[in-house]
């Protein structure tokens, strides 16, 4: 991939683009997630000591306080746990993007944590709690590939 501008809206009903600093907001703990995302592989942060998934990948495991972290490859499917429909651009930056649908996703293979992302490729009226979704990838820049979720 090059550094040329990506298509503004590769998917239908995407949220506004993230702030530009996000691509550099990484450290040794989170780099493996973004590296895997670039390869379009969904992975979930997991405590190496006790196996508890934790999202976001914070420094300490909330179950055992271990600082050791690993990433478990996932099949990339999941279920909508909850969502909202943003219809009013709360931020002027969002004006060209409403409606969009932020959601919490229960990913298959990673119980006890949720991905916080968006349902895309779907009309707002068709999003339902409990609907099956699959991960799709938005290559925002050389350093940032974001997972979204589309109807499975």
């Amino acid at each position, binding site marked *: 991939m090059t550094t040329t501008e990506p298509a503004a809206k590769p998917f239908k009903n995407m*949220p*506004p683009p*993230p*702030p530009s*600093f*996000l691509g550099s*907001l*990484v*450290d040794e*703990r*989170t780099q493996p*997630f*973004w590296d895997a995302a670039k390869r379009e592989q969904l992975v979930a942060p997991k405590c190496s000591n006790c196996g508890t998934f934790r*999202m*976001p*990948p*914070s420094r300490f495991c*909330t179950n055992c306080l271990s600082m050791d972290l690993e990433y478990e490859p996932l099949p990339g499917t999941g279920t909508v*746990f*909850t*969502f*909202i*429909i*943003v*219809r*009013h651009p*709360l*931020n002027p930056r*969002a004006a060209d*993007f409403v409606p*969009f649908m*932020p*959601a*919490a996703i229960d990913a298959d293979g990673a119980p006890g*944590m*949720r*991905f*916080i*992302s*968006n349902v895309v490729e779907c009309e*707002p009226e068709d999003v339902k*709690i*409990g609907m099956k979704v699959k991960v799709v990838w938005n290559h925002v820049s050389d350093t*940032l590939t*974001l997972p979204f979720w589309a109807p499975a």
Partner: protein
Amino acid sequence: MSLKDKVAVVGLGMTYVARGEDAGLAVGDLAILAAEAALNEAGLGHKDLENFAWASGAGDPGGMAATMGVPEVMFAANLTSGPGGGAGALGLAASSIVGGFGDVCLSIITAQTAPKRPTGTSSVFRANPVAGGGAYGGPTGPQPEEAFVAPASISSQGATTAMIANRYLHEHGVPREHLGAVVVSQRANAGDALTLEEYLRSPLIVGPLSALDCTPDLEGGFAAAVITTTVERARDLAQPPIIITAAATGGTPSHATAFQMPSDTFGSSGHRAVAADLYAMAGMGPDDIDVALLYDDFSPMVLMQLEDYGFCGAGEAGAFVAGGNTSVRGGKIPVNTHGGNLSSAYVRGITHVFEAVQQLRGTATNQVDGAQFALVTGSPATIPLSAVILRKA
């Protein structure tokens, strides 16, 4: 040992100036004017003050004490975290008095329109601490964790609440009409005849919430003050003492995380643990409460608190409210008898404390006959969450 029945509310004071009419008064000045009014109501003076205990967001307690010329400060502390509300401030005040630090305590809550904010906005627009860096923001700015939350663009308190509310509505099959019932019921308590049809015509901003599910923003500067002291000393003061029967401050930390709460408490106000602690200290339950002042930054939080405080079973609050059970006119448990912040403006729930005290004094505008016990809750947002039970002496 607990603070049960040892401390009384003895004075209330409030100041408000509309935007553009503040005559150069900063919100800290309004706080001192409110304190003076509360002291006057109690029959005390500012040199009687010893303890300074409030919820966050009203400036520095010790600094204000110095500005007021208080001879000696014996306690100065803030509850941490979000808006918390007046309930949390009362719990902290009672703790300071029962702890023996000093006998007379001032609690302050302030709210102010941001100077550049356009008029007519509402709570739905307030910045989201999760996406805005509050939850994970460190001393050097946004932390790497934020990249896992921010791209979703859940960029306001309204959006965060809507995420929780939609799960709640889904789990229990609660229709939006039942959110409307909260809004209509509280507007009716405030003397404003909003109909359910009008509510349903209000466009969704962040589905499932419309602007009417959110509190209007304050158009000006506001400060409220509450004076507390020992029950013994309260007997000699100007107002009938209203006793703090119980207080609780805390909650389950997972509720403050970025939508990672356990499934069984996700669609809730997060108050369940606080309610259990509160009733345990009071030695009573929901059936003993005569009037409930529930923090209402957003309408669904009223439904979820009705359940978390045991007034209804899980998923039953919507039908309960729609059935008129929370009305000040003959409802089983009158809720937000003053209309709440949904019917006025976002002032961090402090008017709920004032209304509870006035109900128990017997001086409320919408008086609940024979009210003996009042429940007041604070913000159902980030921990600590707080609540108090007040009673007539």
